[in-house]
């Protein structure tokens, strides 16, 4: 079992400090004035050379946002956020829009190297099987600094580029779909994002095309007191397929930082989108100082018949997570899937889950959620499964398992089920278990150390979900989970 062994070695190689992505990059940055105002929004729009309609869209969102209240229903608590104490735009001063990697600030390249994200296509190609190639869009604070394999993808007809570029180059596509899944007025954080979003990825896969490689975006928050508001839009046209992965890290800081993203997925007839997340934002220290507030709206629209959207998430980071990747099952026979592993340790608070909205006939959905709570953390699964009155034959299967490590953490499950169609069949299973001292002793008696035993038991617990991730990320995610739980036993 090399993966577990690797996990152990990895865990061992880390000293007291468990978060290894906590370093900071020294780059001179250009920032918008602190705080939020129409001027700041105009500043952002101008920096991105946006068309007038986009600016107007942002300003409308901003006006709307001013009238909205921050939601309080989640099982999380934090000090009030001062939205005027945040920088909404930060970009490397030297060449914020590099044409090629040679123009990218070497410090930034080094950052991604250190994070293990390959940005040079030649390096990615060397010695690697072609099928495991991954195209990367690297977003550094408010801007995309590099996108790999753009040309090759273009040959296949796939558009993969920073959304700021897509707004200029494919305005019709963007205009048609932006905000069509998560409306500008959707919720407090989504509306804020609509006003100030800075960068993110845009993907369009034309009809009948199977995207020739994995696409991924790597988000890095580097600058202090800066919020990251990325926006991702993925459109899979009829009969197409795309698999997309996002990863995220941030430096260690004593202050909290806000990350309020919006992700919209649109799958047309017979199309399939797989969206995987490995979220490892800085979680704060053992006393709960610092860390990212991850307030994210992610939603997929199975707009066409027989379309499929799968969300897979491995959530180990962030001080607070507030996120519910959802599926609107509009097309008949469409399918939504949600696979989640949410790990919380220290003082982390997680309130996460999904919504499966069944609108079309014979729509099916599946939810597998594994929550692991350790330390003094709180881990809540919150999920909605609903069937519209026209959703004849809707089916859902939900399985929520929680694993508790230690006796100071909490696991909570809050399922909402609404059915307006008598033929809908919804199943819900939930379990809560604890790694027992007896299990630990049994494993140790066979020669496994406490850490090895924990890793083994946890890996067993999350296996169903890890299997949903693309191979190379599954190994990565497995390591991440073990690291997050280091020192949580006993």
């Amino acid at each position, binding site marked *: 079992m090399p993966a577990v062994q690797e996990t152990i070695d990895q865990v061992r190689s880390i000293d007291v400090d468990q978060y290894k992505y906590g370093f900071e990059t020294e780059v001179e940055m250009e920032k918008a004035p602190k705080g939020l105002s129409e001027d700041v929004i105009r500043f952002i729009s101008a920096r991105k050379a946006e068309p007038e309609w986009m600016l107007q869209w942002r300003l409308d969102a901003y006006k709307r946002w001013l009238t909205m209240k921050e939601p309080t229903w989640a099982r999380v608590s934090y000090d009030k956020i001062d939205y005027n104490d945040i920088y909404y735009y930060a970009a490397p001063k030297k060449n914020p829009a590099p044409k090629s990697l040679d123009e990218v600030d070497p410090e930034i390249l080094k950052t991604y190297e250190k994070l293990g994200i390959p940005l040079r296509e030649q390096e990615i190609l060397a010695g690697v099987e072609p099928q495991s190639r991954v195209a990367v869009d690297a977003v550094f604070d408010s801007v995309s600094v590099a996108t790999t394999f753009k040309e090759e993808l273009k040959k296949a007809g796939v558009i993969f580029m920073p959304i700021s570029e897509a707004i200029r180059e494919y305005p019709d596509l963007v205009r048609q779909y932006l905000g069509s899944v998560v409306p500008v007025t959707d919720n407090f954080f989504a509306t804020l994002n609509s006003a100030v979003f800075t960068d993110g990825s845009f993907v369009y896969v034309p009809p009948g095309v199977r995207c020739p490689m994995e696409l991924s975006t790597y988000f890095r928050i580097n600058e202090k007191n800066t919020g990251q508001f990325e926006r991702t839009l993925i459109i899979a046209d009829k009969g197409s397929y795309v698999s997309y992965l996002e990863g995220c890290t941030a430096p260690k800081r004593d202050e909290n930082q806000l990350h309020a993203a919006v992700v919209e997925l649109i799958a047309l007839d017979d199309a399939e989108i797989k969206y995987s997340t490995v979220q490892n934002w800085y979680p704060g220290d053992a006393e709960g100082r610092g860390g990212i507030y991850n307030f994210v709206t992610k939603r997929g629209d199975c707009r066409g018949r027989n379309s499929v959207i799968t969300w897979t998430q491995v959530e180990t980071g962030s001080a607070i997570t507030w996120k519910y990747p959802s599926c609107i099952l509009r097309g008949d026979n469409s399918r939504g899937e949600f696979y989640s592993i949410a790990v919380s340790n220290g003082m982390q608070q997680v309130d996460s889950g999904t919504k499966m909205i069944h609108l079309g006939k014979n729509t099916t959905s599946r939810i597998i959620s594994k929550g692991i709570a350790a330390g003094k953390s709180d881990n809540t699964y919150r999920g909605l499964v609903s069937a519209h009155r026209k959703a004849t034959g809707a089916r859902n299967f939900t399985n929520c398992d929680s694993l508790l490590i230690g006796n100071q953490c909490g696991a909570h499950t809050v399922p909402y089920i609404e059915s307006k169609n008598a033929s809908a069949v919804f199943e819900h299973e939930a379990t809560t278990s604890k790694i027992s001292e007896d*299990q630990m002793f*049994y494993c140790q008696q066979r020669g496994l150390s406490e850490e*090895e035993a924990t890793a083994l038991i946890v890996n067993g617990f999350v296996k169903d979900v890890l299997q949903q991730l693309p191979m190379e990320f599954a190994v990565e995610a497995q390591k991440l989970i073990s690291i997050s739980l280091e020192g949580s036993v006993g």
Partner: protein
Amino acid sequence: MLEIKNLVVQIEDKRILNGLNLTVSKGEIAAIMGPNGSGKSTLSYVIAGKEDYEILDGEILLDGQNLLEMEPDQRAAAGVFLAFQYPLEIPGVGTMTFLKAALNAQRKARGDDELSTPDFIKQVNAAAAKLEMPKDMLKRALNVGFSGGEKKRMEILQMALLQPSFCILDETDSGLDIDALRIVSEGVNSLRSPDRSFLVITHYQRLLNHIVPDTVHVMHGGRIVRTGGKELALELEANGYADYREEEAA
């Protein structure tokens, strides 16, 4: 060789072991018999290093190494193996995965190289065949959904694989039917060797018909109160533990 000297152990202010002395030589099979509550299982847990027990006095030496100063996994690497009375289920963890992790952890602790996968599979299959274990058992999660007898067989399989120098069998016969008892006993007997000693804890003499001990100890009130040869087990079977209870009453 295992030496226990004047071991005094309590749990939650209740004294369980009261100055226990015991020596098991290399290659010896020692049986411990005794009524319920005499401290037999506590003894096995304390040797293996389970928490919860407070060691007030005494020492446990395995080939001169002080076990009480070692973590359970270090003791395992030093050669201690406990076949549990109630083996634990580990959901989601494949049996092969577990076995390989355990074996390699012990090898690593002893400074040996990891076993290659083909060699590992060969060893497991050989041991499984000896225990007449159906192949699909190895494909399931460890002990999950196993019958009582299957769990006991899995314990012996692990013993065969890990090659410990000191094996404790904690009521391995409980819950076994006659056929399973025979298979498990044969498994244990095949592991008898001049370099390996056994401590066989049981209530009943019947196990000792299959695993014939060199010595039999009677445990009562947290102490070894009598030691004899294998014929002592027969005597106990005939007379019960009444003698010892009266002794206590008197």
